[in-house]
């Protein structure tokens, strides 16, 4: 059973998860509640929001496998695109506001600072996923090719977490929450792949 009403509710929830943090961020920025360097706070907020949404996207597969409710799969693209939007925003705040669109400087920074190169690599791995997510594109691709391509979410998340970890000096608490969730989801994926093979 698909329970169309439940699907609609889930869609609304996902839209809210994408939009409400943006409204909060805009409001807090205007009010001057983001501290002395608001663009830095905003960039960190966008990064962690994107990471959260990407992990939430990744958890829909296991949720479907465990419940067999197809509604989870019906909303996956929507959530994944919100995650992409936030991570792209995260990078654009860095490039536009912090580096002031100075592409030359920004590139020099990427070469200088390994955590930037790592973050950029993670974002680039997600780009083909975003590009192939419209239903029209998906229909034209071979199912297996599409599935194989979308497994890039795992290395992208691993690189994203590495990008985060490389900047921490002592306080690993928040990072650990994200890393543990990723570990559990990765474990689930490997476990179910092994079961399917049998």
């Amino acid at each position, binding site marked *: 059973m698909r329970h169309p009403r439940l699907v609609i509710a889930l869609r609304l929830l996902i839209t809210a998860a994408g939009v409400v943090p943006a409204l909060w961020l805009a409001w807090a920025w205007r009010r001057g509640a983001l*501290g*002395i*360097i608001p663009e830095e706070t905003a960039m960190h907020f966008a990064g962690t929001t994107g990471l959260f949404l990407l992990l939430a996207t990744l958890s829909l597969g296991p949720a479907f496998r465990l419940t067999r409710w197809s509604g989870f799969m019906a909303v996956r693209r929507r959530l994944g695109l919100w995650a992409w939007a936030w991570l792209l925003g995260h990078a654009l705040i860095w490039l536009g506001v912090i580096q*002031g669109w100075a592409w030359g*400087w920004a590139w020099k920074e990427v070469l*200088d600072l390994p*955590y930037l190169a790592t973050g950029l690599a993670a974002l680039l791995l997600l780009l083909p996923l975003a590009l192939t997510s419209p239903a029209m594109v998906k229909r034209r691709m071979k199912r297996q090719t599409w599935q194989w391509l979308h497994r890039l979410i795992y290395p992208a998340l691993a690189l994203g977490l590495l990008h985060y970890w490389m900047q921490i000096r*002592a*306080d690993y608490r928040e990072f650990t929450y994200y890393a543990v969730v990723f570990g559990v989801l990765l474990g689930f994926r490997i476990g179910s792949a092994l079961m399917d093979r049998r």
Partner: protein
Amino acid sequence: MTRYRYPLPPGPITPESVYRDRRRFLRQSSGLLLGAALGGGLAGYGIPARADWLEESLEAAGTGPHTTDEALTDHDAVTGYNNFYEFGTRKRDPADWAHQLDTDPWSVTIDGEVEKPGTFAFEDIVRPQTLEERIYRLRCVEAWSMVIPWNGFELGALLKRHGPTSRAKYVVFETLHDPEQMRGQRRDILDWPYREALRMDEAMHPLTLLAVGLYGRELPNQNGAPLRLVVPWKYGFKSIKSIVRIHLQEDRPTTTWEEAAPNEYGFYANVNPEVSHPRWNQARERRIGESGKRETEMFNGYGEEVAHLYSDMDLTKHF
């Protein structure tokens, strides 16, 4: 020499600590008789006696040597963007939570290889000293920097009063350890209490300052009140805050950050654009309040004064 002028921040009519504590005050007041609440509540909020003489000394402070004439970093940035993990690891945590620290009364233990050891009241340590204003660059190990007008006195002047013995080779400092007042210490992100140290010649160097004021005012808690170290040619983490102990000893100690990650934070921690942190480059820095980046200078631009201290050392090894 003309004194560098800067606009003083407008003074609040209500002391900041009282203002910040207003919610607790209201909470405590409710349910009690109004008279009793006011009587009991206000008695604890008397203006500390320390403020009088310290304000006077701060007003009398002349400009000391080694002062830079670079544009000062905004007062709000200096007091609102801090690394002081005792109050939390986000940059705004110290400004949000440092009011929970009570710095009056305050005492400092000076012991180890000194002729006159003991525990001394803050007043007895600071009052004999003549305060100076020193405008120093501060370079954080995280590749950002500020220009800050400190008020304080040379650490060397204090150490001389206590007579270091011939065995005193290192000066070790400790921050207060009190998770009740310093909420960041309720988690073991670092091995509390925070410890820092200098070699004796670094400690006696005229650039090395003990600060009690900032921008001509009493040092705000988030900047390390009531007494903090300022070593302008080293990364900011060397400049330990809210000091309760100064211990002189013969052996080189291990400092807090060195212990946490010895491959990332060395004992010397001299600002050095040529030695990268393992995870980021130190060649450039962001001056808070500016866009873009500046080139980082060797010894944070104080090489003329301090390079000789390290003339026979390999700074790639002793970073």
